[in-house]
């Protein structure tokens, strides 16, 4: 029971880091980015290449994953995404599905279609006993890293100058521009940060979620669930939603394996019908 909770929390934290970027682009900027998983996959494969083939230490591999995805995100944002922000949702959907298909084919071509694993250092394998409970070291590490990232994100968004600029840019672009905020740059940086986090999540999660070319399609729905269920007004909403989703998914697969992913999809549909704006919404927000 506790193990399930623990695994669920690790899984949920991971989902949060993966989806945090999406909660900003989709939730705040109102841009339907179905290609978010592609950045996560890019990070995962970047880590795979540097760790497995070049023999770089695992921790450095994670950093590489972050940087690679962030750079990729920044590049695509500046060259392609900027043209699509103002278009209709249908266009955004088509555009990002196109990106997903391309990324799947490119990875298939360069990396092969089979599932791959990043070599984890021996010090992270096995279990560790905390308060008399055996816990997987790797999952513990995920929880620690993701917890720190969540705190940093929350602080960054609420306490720093950049955070307030971002919130201003999202709330009212025109006024923000009028106040001298470089909205384009703010969005680009945010997008890159979100992509980088996704990449980091992809690398961290390769062990748990697996890493293969159809990763963006397989987990697209999970990211979307986190964002839509969590609502878009803060970081805490998606965070709680990720935890719920993680625990729910792990528990569902453990207790009622015959239902598979039913539990999650059903919960999502029910929540969307019940509260279309998400579970955790700030009252009176737009």
């Amino acid at each position, binding site marked *: 029971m506790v193990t399930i909770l623990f695994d669920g929390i690790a899984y949920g934290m991971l989902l949060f880091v993966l989806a945090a970027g999406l909660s900003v682009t989709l939730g705040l900027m109102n841009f339907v980015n179905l290609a978010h998983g592609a950045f996560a996959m890019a990070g995962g494969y970047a880590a795979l290449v540097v760790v497995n083939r070049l023999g770089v230490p695992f921790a450095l591999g994670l950093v590489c994953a972050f940087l690679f995805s962030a750079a990729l995100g920044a590049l695509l944002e500046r060259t392609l995404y900027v043209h699509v922000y103002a278009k209709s*949702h249908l266009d955004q959907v088509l555009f990002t599905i196109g990106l997903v298909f*391309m990324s799947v084919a490119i990875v298939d071509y360069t990396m092969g279609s089979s599932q791959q694993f990043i070599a984890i250092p021996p010090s992270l394998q096995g279990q560790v006993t905390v308060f008399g409970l055996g816990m997987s070291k790797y999952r513990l590490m995920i929880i620690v890293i993701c917890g720190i990232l969540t705190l940093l994100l929350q602080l960054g968004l609420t306490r720093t100058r950049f955070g307030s600029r971002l919130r201003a840019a999202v709330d009212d672009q025109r006024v923000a521009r009028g106040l001298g905020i470089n909205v384009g740059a703010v969005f680009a940086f945010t997008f890159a940060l979100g992509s980088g986090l996704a990449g980091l999540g992809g690398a961290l999660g390769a062990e748990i979620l697996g890493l293969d070319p159809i990763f963006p399609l397989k987990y697209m729905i999970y990211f979307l669930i986190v964002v839509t269920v969590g609502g878009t007004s803060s970081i805490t909403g998606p965070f709680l939603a990720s935890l719920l989703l993680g625990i729910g998914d792990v528990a569902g697969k453990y207790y009622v394996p015959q239902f598979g992913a039913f539990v999650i999809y059903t919960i999502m549909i029910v929540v969307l019908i019940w509260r279309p704006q998400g579970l955790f919404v700030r009252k009176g927000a737009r």
Partner: protein
Amino acid sequence: MRGPDVSTSAALASAISAQFSARARWSPLEMVFWLGAFSTIWLLPEQHLILTEIVIWALLALSLDLILGYAGIISLGHAAFFGVGAYTAGLLAKHALVGEPVLALLVSGLAGGAFGFATSFLVLRGTDLTRLMVTLGVALLVREIANRAAWLTGGADGLQGIDMQPVLGLFRFDLYGHTAYIYSLTVLFVLFLLARRVVGSPFGLSLLAIKGNPLRASAVGIGQTWRLVGIYTLAAAYAGIAGGLLTQTTAFTSLESLSFDRSADALLVLIIGGTGHLYGGLIGAVVFRFAQDWISTATPQYWQFWIGLFLVLIVLVGRDRIGGWFAPLRRLADRISGWRPWRPGPAAAPDEGGRP
């Protein structure tokens, strides 16, 4: 323009009916299109297998056009209805419940429609994003059910051992797909006629009004709920029939019919041809399937890359602009259709003024 005239209700009624009959009139280009389509039965006999696939894609895209082009509902889960129809047709044939294909196809359509009706209430609420998620979620859910219920659907192996009976008890499905093609094309034509009738009706126009501005539409007394439910159900029935056709013509169905790829491809097919004018899906299907054929002979494995690139380019160039390339053609068609020897001269022209 003709204010005093339309103030009297009789004149108004006649103006409206003139408007409707103008909309319902067949333009020569449409006739040429369908004559061309039916002539392929004799002209391209060795292509019938691929043409059957085109017809099925066209029907699926047509059904998507009904909700996307006419009601403005973005759906990422249209494969759900397609798959329901496909499995219904497959199960009916496999267990010999309804042996006759046309009847079985109707049942598939009913199944798709019933499922569409049940889920239509989910897409009524919320924004584009919510609809997107709900349709996607429903499709994933159905796929998961089909995957798990292996005793019924064959799971990942697909539904095998389907033995199709002759159409109407007369025409056997042959190896070269001749029967299958003629059968599918006829179904498409009949359903197209129905769809054309529906979108040209006051009901179809009221849908366009809702799509244009939901708030204003309800302000002038056009309620949304039942209209959206109606068109969604109809579109789902169409998709179900398309799925049933696929099963009947290939004597096989698998989880692929429920996959996300199929929903996305259906959207792509529709976008290639353009939304909101019924022919979009049909033209798109032709382009899509031949492009697929051509690209996959060149690079068999990475067809998906080119689809992706194509989608990205379409959006970046702008869908309107791509539609604009056809504008001269459409104007030409208008001019041809405008010329009618039996037309009573320019007196009919002011009817156009009835448009707001």
